[in-house]
């Protein structure tokens, strides 16, 4: 049996329910998207009391299986107006398992002027305490205060000042293994949804005593070892170990899809100044607290994360990932890793998504508010966000709103969510993925780039995107880290064997994929019921009209092709 803890945020009451269905067994996005579909009225206001927020760990959470402790956070997104699943690493999933929880829901909402509240969940039950002492503080300070009060090992979930102010690019920050809330479910504005319930933090105490029940210990141990071996031997996942996701800078530059100058180019002169090798060398050279390898959760055999130090070797930001390096780096023509790490740190502190804010700053630079390549101005714009100035609030509302306010036509978004770090005109597979995702532009939804023989051609890309929509969604579907997918993309057997060894439940690859596809259908249905028209699944017209100089390409994906990519 699996438990969901339902918290009524209006009166602080909570109840535990037990379930035994496959959706609860798999957890992750399988569960979060079903709960949203079933329980949240599709046409509700995202920041109103009818929306709910769900936190779900996955099928292998709390065990010895590498990279199996991500949590999926689901709700209706204020940024896209549709369904949202955003996931994060860290230790929260483990703490939920130790407290016997598969899911937590935050339901209802108190009066708008109610005081900030924290729900503290431990083995003795749920306690509601005042969260006023956290109000207005940055996420780093909040992390320290939460650690002081509940210990560094508690699993904490919090929001930054941007979330408190109900801004649409506000994310939800989760504790890393050091007690710092730096692992973000950044996308879709779910931080604002949490704030709309006047919940400033959730704390999962480190007093849980529930051990994973495992039906077949020997088979489970062997299966767990097999996953580690596969991850270590896989030439792709093992690359993450040395360079992390930063390796994509060189690859995207070579393929001419590195977002540059507010997505008007796909190549940045001097990109090597912010590439993986430079980052690796800088971290090694500075030493101190810097780490080229780091795990966001335990255990993780890949350890793609890093700790980027300042000039004195003190932690500046952890992690700094490719998506941020592109959206807050090349997209703004910035060639300085220290600037990118500083902006990333401010974003983490303000509690905003680095992609959506990077895209919004690109739009602001195009509007003439600052020069592309101006390091100080870019950092200053992030400070405006942290300080919640009028401009900062506009930027933290995402690039669609920023473009409307600032009069910019070339706004890189789909459904209001900023386009991630692969220029869609140079990769038609990624264009199809961005257009057809129920989450708005999302690269993890169906990552085609590495499998596109001719990235600039749209031939076969609907099918390719759909293939990777399933492969990519499999990991989210059961709370695994996305980077495990390289090792199981052709054979999910090792993970399904682990599920069988743990629960005694036999799930064939076909049955599992059917659950994944069913999730996609439910997500699309929710959006349709929410009133999102097919015509919203488009880029701004400029992507169809203006050629990307380096490839000579425009987006040529038709509405019909987008619909095909959404049809299951």
């Amino acid at each position, binding site marked *: 049996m699996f438990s969901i803890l339902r918290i009524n945020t209006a009166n602080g009451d909570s109840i535990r329910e037990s379930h035994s269905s496959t959706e609860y067994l798999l957890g992750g996005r399988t569960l979060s998207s079903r709960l949203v579909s079933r329980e949240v009225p599709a046409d509700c206001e995202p920041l109103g009391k009818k929306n709910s927020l769900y936190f779900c760990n996955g099928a292998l959470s709390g065990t010895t299986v590498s990279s199996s402790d991500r949590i999926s956070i689901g709700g209706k997104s204020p940024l896209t107006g549709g369904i949202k699943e955003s996931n994060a690493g860290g230790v929260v999933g483990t703490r939920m398992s130790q407290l016997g929880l598969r899911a937590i829901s935050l339901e209802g909402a108190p009066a708008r002027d109610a005081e900030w509240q924290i729900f503290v969940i431990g083995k003795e039950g749920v306690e509601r305490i005042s969260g006023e002492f956290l109000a207005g503080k940055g996420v780093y300070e909040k992390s320290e205060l939460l650690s002081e009060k509940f210990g560094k090992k508690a699993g904490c979930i919090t929001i930054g000042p941007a979330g408190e102010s109900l801004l649409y690019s506000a994310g939800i920050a989760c504790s890393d293994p050091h007690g710092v809330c730096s692992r973000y479910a950044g996308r879709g504005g779910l931080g604002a949804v949490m704030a709309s319930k006047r919940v400033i933090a959730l704390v999962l105490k480190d007093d849980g005593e529930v051990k994973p029940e495992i039906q077949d210990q020997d088979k489970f141990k062997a299966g767990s070892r097999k996953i580690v071996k596969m991850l270590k031997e896989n030439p*792709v996942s093992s690359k993450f170990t040395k360079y992390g996701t930063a390796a*994509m800078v060189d*690859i995207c530059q070579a393929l001419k899809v590195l977002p540059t100058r507010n997505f008007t180019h796909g190549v940045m002169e001097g990109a090597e100044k912010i590439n993986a090798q430079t980052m690796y060398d800088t971290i090694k050279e500075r030493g101190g607290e810097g780490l080229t390898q780091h795990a966001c959760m335990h255990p993780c055999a890949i350890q*793609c994360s890093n700790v980027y130090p300042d000039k004195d070797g003190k932690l500046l930001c952890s992690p700094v990932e490719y998506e941020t390096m592109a959206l807050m780096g090349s997209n703004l023509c910035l060639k300085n890793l220290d600037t990118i790490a500083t902006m990333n740190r401010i974003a983490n502190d303000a509690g905003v998504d680095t992609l959506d804010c990077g895209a919004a700053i690109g739009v602001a630079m195009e509007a003439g508010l600052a020069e592309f390549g101006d390091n100080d101005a870019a950092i200053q714009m992030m400070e405006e966000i942290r300080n919640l100035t009028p401009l900062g609030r506009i930027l933290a509302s995402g690039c669609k709103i920023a473009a409307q306010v600032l009069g910019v036509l070339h706004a890189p978004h789909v459904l209001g969510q900023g386009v991630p770090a692969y220029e869609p005109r140079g990769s038609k597979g990624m264009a199809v993925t961005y257009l057809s995702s129920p989450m708005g532009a999302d690269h993890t939804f169906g990552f085609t780039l590495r*499998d596109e023989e001719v*990235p600039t051609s749209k031939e076969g890309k609907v099918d390719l995107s759909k293939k990777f929509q399933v492969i990519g969604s499999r990991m989210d579907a059961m709370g695994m880290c996305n980077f495990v997918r390289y090792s199981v993309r052709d054979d999910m057997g090792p993970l399904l064997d682990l599920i069988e060894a743990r629960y005694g439940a036999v799930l064939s690859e076909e049955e599992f994929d059917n659950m994944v596809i069913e999730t996609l259908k439910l997500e699309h249905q929710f959006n349709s019921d929410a009133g999102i028209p097919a015509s919203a699944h488009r880029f701004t017209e400029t992507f169809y009209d203006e050629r990307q100089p380096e490839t000579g390409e425009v987006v040529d994906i038709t509405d019909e092709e987008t619909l095909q990519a959404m049809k299951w």
Partner: protein
Amino acid sequence: MVTVNFRLTEAGEVNVELNEPQPLATILDKAASRAGIELGGVIAVRSGQAITLDTPINDDDIIDVFPAISGG
């Protein structure tokens, strides 16, 4: 002579002799065995264009080969 540049690996630059055009797959096999590395999925780029495993490679071509990593 074809130059294969294995980017983001210790292998670095490897040269492969060529008498007549051969598919990229053949060139990569030779270059990888010379460098003593195992190739997983790769993205290959010649003169700024992505090329496929059956693309004919000519003498004097320079090919950048990246491990096919993707973002997360």
